[in-house]
Structure formats: structure tokens, C-alpha cells
């Protein structure tokens, strides 16, 4: 395994928490892609890395867990399922399809503007650290920019969230969208800025 216990400790020691619902999307992704056997294998791998039993179905959907543990979950899944950046992005893309939190915001999926207005609220339902802010929306050129501040847990989130925001954009516009992280904290940027075009 490429992920070391030291890396995991650094991640788990980071400030901030992720809601249990986020882990549920990981569980559904594994089951969808590889089934129950693989799920058990991944749970064992995570358990070994964090030195305690780890079961996705024991996670409380409304509970709070170290944000670093979410990064560990994504990293172990990516390694176990042999996912490259495109595969990790796909995992993020599929997450809103099974996310309970997204369903709580269905009333805002009327237009991209509504979703744009509520992104901060949607983010706070998933993570206690970092803020997601609407930065710019351009109707004539059909694009919007989202700024993710103070959320620098691990670069894997940049890839994962690119897929996640892409799907949210598609659900809001009912159209195909493209996404690009035009500024990244891990690439000498101040924050993370995602540009969605439709």
C-alpha cells in the first residue's frame, strides 16, 4: 500500500470534520463499482491504517468525523480500485447521485443561480472546515466561478470535488457542463477556484 500510517496520521490530525453522509457516498460507490467483497477489503485497509475497526455502515450519517479520514477513504478507494485522476473525478461525479445532503437542497435546483447562491450552505452540510463561496457568474458567456477557501486537506479533494461540482452543475442546468480548477492552493494558488462552463 502506498499510503503510509504517517500520511494518515497527518491527515487525521488536520482541523475540521466531515459529515457521515459524505462517507456513505464512498460506500455506495464501492458497492456500485466492485460489490460487497471489495467493500470489506477497503474497510480492512482503512482499519489497518487508522488502527481501529472501520465499517462504512457503522458511520452515523449526521455524525462528524475527522475531515482527514474522508481523504483517507478517497485515497484508499482510489488505490484499491486502481483509479487515476479521471477515475477519482468520476467518483466525485457520481457522489451527488447518492448524496442525502444534495436531496435536502432539491428545492434550490431550479437554476444555476439558485444553486450558486446556496453553495456555502451545501458545503457546510458536508464539512465544518473551509468555505465555498460564489465568486462570479456570467450569464452571457455561461460560466460561474466558485472559491474554496481554507480547505487544504489533500490534493485528492481537488480532483474529487471537480467531479462533484461538475455533476451539481449538470443537475442545476440540466445540461452538460465542463469544469476546471483554475487556481489551486497546492499549485501555488491562494485558494481553490473552480470554473464551471455550460
Amino acid at each position, binding site marked *: 500500500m502506498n499510503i503510509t500510517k504517517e500520511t494518515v496520521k497527518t491527515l487525521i490530525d488536520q482541523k475540521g470534520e466531515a459529515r457521515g453522509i459524505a462517507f456513505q457516498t464512498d460506500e455506495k460507490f464501492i458497492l456500485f463499482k466492485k460489490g460487497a467483497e471489495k467493500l470489506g477489503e477497503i474497510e480492512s485497509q482503512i482499519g489497518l491504517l487508522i488502527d481501529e475497526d472501520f465499517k462504512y455502515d457503522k458511520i452515523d450519517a449526521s455524525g462528524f468525523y475527522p475531515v482527514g479520514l474522508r481523504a483517507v477513504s478517497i485515497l484508499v478507494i482510489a488505490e484499491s480500485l486502481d483509479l487515476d485522476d479521471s477515475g477519482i473525478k468520476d467518483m466525485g461525479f457520481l457522489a451527488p447521485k447518492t448524496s442525502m445532503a444534495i436531496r435536502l437542497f432539491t428545492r434550490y435546483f*431550479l437554476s444555476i443561480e439558485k444553486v450558486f447562491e446556496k453553495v456555502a450552505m451545501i458545503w457546510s452540510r458536508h464539512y465544518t472546515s473551509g468555505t465555498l463561496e460564489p465568486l462570479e457568474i456570467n450569464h452571457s458567456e455561461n460560466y460561474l466561478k466558485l472559491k474554496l477557501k481554507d480547505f487544504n486537506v489533500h490534493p485528492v479533494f481537488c480532483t474529487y470535488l471537480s467531479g462533484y461540482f461538475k455533476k451539481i452543475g449538470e443537475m442545476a442546468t*440540466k445540461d452538460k457542463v465542463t469544469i476546471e480548477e483554475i487556481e489551486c492552493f497546492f499549485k501555488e494558488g491562494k485558494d481553490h477556484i473552480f470554473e464551471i462552463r455550460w
Partner: protein
Amino acid sequence: MVGNSEKKIEILKEDIALLEEYVRDLFSFTPIGIIIVSPKGVILETNPALEKIVESDTYSLIGEPVEKVIPKDIYKETVREGEISGRKVILKKSRGDDIPVNIFSKERKTSEGETAGYLFALLDATEMERMNEEIEESKKVLEVRVAARTQELKEMAENLETQVKLRTTELEDKLRELEKMNKLMVGRELKMIEVKEKLSRAEEEIIRLKGEKEPAFDKNNPDK
């Protein structure tokens, strides 16, 4: 005070978890396919029954345009009218097969009166269609049997009528023969009566003639 609030939050969280479990069980159990659609027309939620009806899975449906499952005109009518109650339509399964369903739909509104999306309920009508077809089939078979039996009865009646006619003719012939015989018998009887009368008259004549030739009988002198 803080401890008390935390306890209340814990209780509320437990209540929400129980409620969520209850809704999930109900949502999973119902044999009616349910789709929750965003105000923009994107599928946000489906239940196992719906996935079974259209033979698809959550990942293939959620986040997709509602028209992937619901016919465009039905969706447009729901948006326009606010609801549809029990419309029979033919859907396409993911593999392209047709499936008859009864669709119900309703607009969801927020407490402020804004459209919060749409709900669609799909009732698999395959079984009902199959039963209807069976009834139709039975009806046709019954109609054929009734027609055959009617024909059979008609033929029997016709046959019977012919036989009755034949029998009547036979009886009429016999009757005529009897009448003829009767007439013959009666004629002969009359003739005999006539002959007897003639004979009687002839005997009387003979006696009378004999009386004229012999003297009248003297009872005081019978030898004379």
C-alpha cells in the same frame, strides 16, 4: 445549560435518524415506482421499485433529465397542470423493451408557494394488462364456443324441423290412408245394410206373393 442543550440535540438527532430509517424502509418497500424531480426537471431520487420497473440503477438515473424515464408530454403536462392522475403510458425500459404503466404526478411546493420540484409515481400495469389480455382471450374463446354451440343448436333445430316435417307427412299419408279405409269400410257397411234391406224387402215380397196363391188360413180349421 450547555449539557442540557447537547442532550436535546442528541435526542433530536436520534429522532431524525429514526424518521429517516422509517422513510427509507417505506420508500424501499413500496411496489410503486417513485421519482423525485428537481424544479429544473432533473431526477434527484428514485426508489428500488422504479429501478425494477425500468430495469435501471440509481447511478444511471439520478442526475439525468426526467425525460429519460417520463415521456416529455407527461412531464410538460405536470409542469403546466400541477398534477396527473392515473395516465396509462408505455415506457421504454433501459434495454428498449416496452412496459405499460399508470403514471401519477404532482408538483411539490415550498411553504412560500415556490415550485420545489415534482413527484412521479409509476404503477407497473404489466400484470393488469396480462389479466386484461387473458380476459379478452377468454371472451374470444367463449364467443367462438357460443357461436359453435349456436350453430350446432341451429342445425339440430333445422334437423328436428325436417324430421318433424317428414314425420308429419308420414302421419298425413297414414291419415289419408285411414280415411280412405274408413270411407271404404263405411261404404261397404252401407252397401251391406242396403243389401240387407233389399233382401228383407225381397223376402217380404216372396211371402206376400205366396200368400196370394194359397187360401187364407182358417184357424178354426187348420187342416184346411
